[in-house]
């Protein structure tokens, strides 16, 4: 049974484009039309069809000239936190409603150089602050599995677009879980790489020591293909980008089975070989498997872990004792850094300027208060407080000290295991508007993802089945620094043996 164009993943599309079975222009037109068909999902914020088609034509020309590369001609879309020249960038905020960047983010430029076609900008929580894409100034994004429910956040538009097959891949960013959690809630695959892998140049900054770009797609292989193009040093433009050579994260996946160069062939061959993860120790932190996690989520995770055992992996009990502390630590550090980063929005050189004000100070106050939504203002207030005189030591400094202890806990755990696994989110996707006014309750839901961000470790979410209300559940895999290839390879083996990642929501 042949697939429709929008059902194809990145690797499959690239193969069809390379075989000239379809043109990039055709795929682009198909997906641009499909995006409009499903606008009720609130996934997209902006399009520039002319620019997209020009990119597609350029990719077709490269293909016609005989060029072959893994992403050439394949469409994607970018979270609206990455600046782009050809489209507006709002970061989900009224503050940047009319902002047009004079440059492309490094990650955007790298994927464009690789020949990908940018279909548009994707909705997100305002300034990447949120877990439900219900903090966007431009309306919520919706979960394709149930349009009354959130797709997760902050990369909610990205997750919704990929899950609804509006696009085979999207970029996201993850500061405390914003790639992993929406991937989990929409049944797709996403990875946040080691801090510093991808350049943050052109990524609207939320928390500079935590923000990281990453791919979201429908398989580990597709994520690996994108990450290979996205990652790499950018020393002159992002001083925190790591000076490590570019890596082909997909090489190990494609050749892991029979040495077949073709992804489809490799998949077919791999399915016959079930002990591929022999020797892999998967650590299960007891703090991730206690109370507070919904029964349906736990059941799906346990079933997925049994699958890993069938593949030859060993499950090891470990402890990450400061897991609960990661909540106050993160919610001190991230807002502190955000309050500093968002101080650039003053209505002077870009962004919203109030229409009425008395003097300069009043202009700052009014512009910022009008431009920023309530969650953003709250985090700026928290951040300003913990950095202010008299409180810096007790809060910010203390949090950074505990951060080191949390990172050390992981290093200790990695002496007993190779990869850490557990849930991403304590629950499946909740209904839009359902989360309480109580900020603490909302922040507690981030408990499984925050510590990985604080430590700067790579973390993935892969589809692992369904929980309450028939909603997707994601399994989190956490690796040691720079072990993205191992994480992606482990996920890939799981995806060869199971088919959760191929499930599509009804009607998509």
């Amino acid at each position, binding site marked *: 049974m042949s697939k429709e164009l929008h059902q194809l993943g990145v690797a499959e599309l690239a193969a069809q484009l390379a075989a000239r079975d379809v043109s990039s222009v055709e795929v682009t037109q198909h997906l641009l039309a499909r995006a409009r068909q499903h606008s009720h999902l609130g996934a997209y914020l902006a399009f520039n069809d002319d620019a997209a088609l020009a990119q597609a034509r350029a990719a077709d020309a490269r293909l016609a000239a005989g060029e072959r590369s893994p992403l050439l001609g394949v469409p994607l879309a970018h979270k609206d936190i990455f600046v782009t020249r050809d489209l507006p960038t709002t970061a989900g905020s009224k503050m940047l409603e009319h*902002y047009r*960047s*004079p440059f492309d983010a490094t990650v955007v430029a790298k994927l464009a150089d690789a020949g990908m076609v940018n279909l548009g900008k994707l909705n997100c929580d305002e300034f990447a602050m949120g877990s439900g894409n219900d903090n966007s100034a431009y309306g919520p994004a919706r979960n394709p599995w149930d349009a009354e429910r959130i797709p997760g956040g902050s990369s909610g538009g990205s997750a919704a677009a990929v899950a609804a097959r509006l696009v085979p891949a999207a970029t996201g960013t993850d500061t405390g879980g914003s790639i992993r959690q929406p991937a989990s809630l929409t049944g797709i695959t996403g990875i946040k790489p080691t*801090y510093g892998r991808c350049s943050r140049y052109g990524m609207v900054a939320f928390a500079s*020591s935590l923000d990281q770009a990453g791919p979201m797609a429908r398989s580990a292989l597709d994520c690996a293909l994108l990450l290979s193009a996205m990652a790499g040093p950018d*020393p*002159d433009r992002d*001083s925190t980008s*790591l*000076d490590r050579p570019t890596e082909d994260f997909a090489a190990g996946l494609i050749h892991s089975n029979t040495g077949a160069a073709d992804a489809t062939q490799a998949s077919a061959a791999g399915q016959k070989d079930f002990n591929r993860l022999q020797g892999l120790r998967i650590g299960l932190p007891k703090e991730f498997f206690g109370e507070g996690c919904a029964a349906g989520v736990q059941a799906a995770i346990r079933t997925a872990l049994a699958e890993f055992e069938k593949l030859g992996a060993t499950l090891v009990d470990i402890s990450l004792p*400061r897991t*609960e*502390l990661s909540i*106050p630590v993160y*919610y*001190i550090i991230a807002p502190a850094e955000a*309050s500093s980063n968002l101080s650039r929005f*003053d209505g*002077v*050189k*870009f962004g919203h300027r109030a229409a009425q*004000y*008395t*003097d*300069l*100070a009043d202009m700052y*106050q*009014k512009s*910022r*208060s009008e431009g*920023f939504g309530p969650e953003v*203002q*709250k985090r*700026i*207030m*928290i951040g*300003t*407080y913990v950095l*202010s005189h008299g409180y810096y030591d007790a*809060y910010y*400094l*203390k*949090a*950074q*000290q*505990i*951060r*080191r*202890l949390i*990172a*050390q806990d992981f*290093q200790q755990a990695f002496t007993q295991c190779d990869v850490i696994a557990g849930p991403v989110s304590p629950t499946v996707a909740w209904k839009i508007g359902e989360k309480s006014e*109580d900020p*603490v309750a909302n*922040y507690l839901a981030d408990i499984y993802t925050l510590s990985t961000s*604080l*430590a*700067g*470790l790579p973390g993935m979410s892969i589809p692992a089945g369904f929980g309450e209300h028939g909603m997707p559940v994601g399994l989190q895999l956490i690796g040691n*620094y720079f072990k993205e290839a191992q994480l992606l390879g482990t996920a890939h083996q799981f995806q060869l043996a199971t088919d959760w990642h191929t499930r599509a929501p009804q009607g998509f």
Partner: protein
Amino acid sequence: MALTPQDIARIATLARLEMDAAHSARMLTQLNGFFDIVGQMNAVDTTGVEPLAHPTAVIDTVALRLRDDVVSESNRREENQRSAPAVERGLFLVPKVIE
């Protein structure tokens, strides 16, 4: 440690945010609720622990690089100013600061 309305006013001024009475009151409740959980941190013994600012500093020395002191950008003032709220003859306009 509970915050007071005066704290909210002071922090808002530092953050260059203004809020009406209702918003301030909501902010006070939310921030106090938040700082309740932050109290957990006090129980942790962090004597002698170096703060961690750059995540991979746990396994590696992180030295922020300095790039060469050469001009790498061209003059793109018009492009760079196209999102500016008020511009005249290449200058950003703001309310008068000096009398």
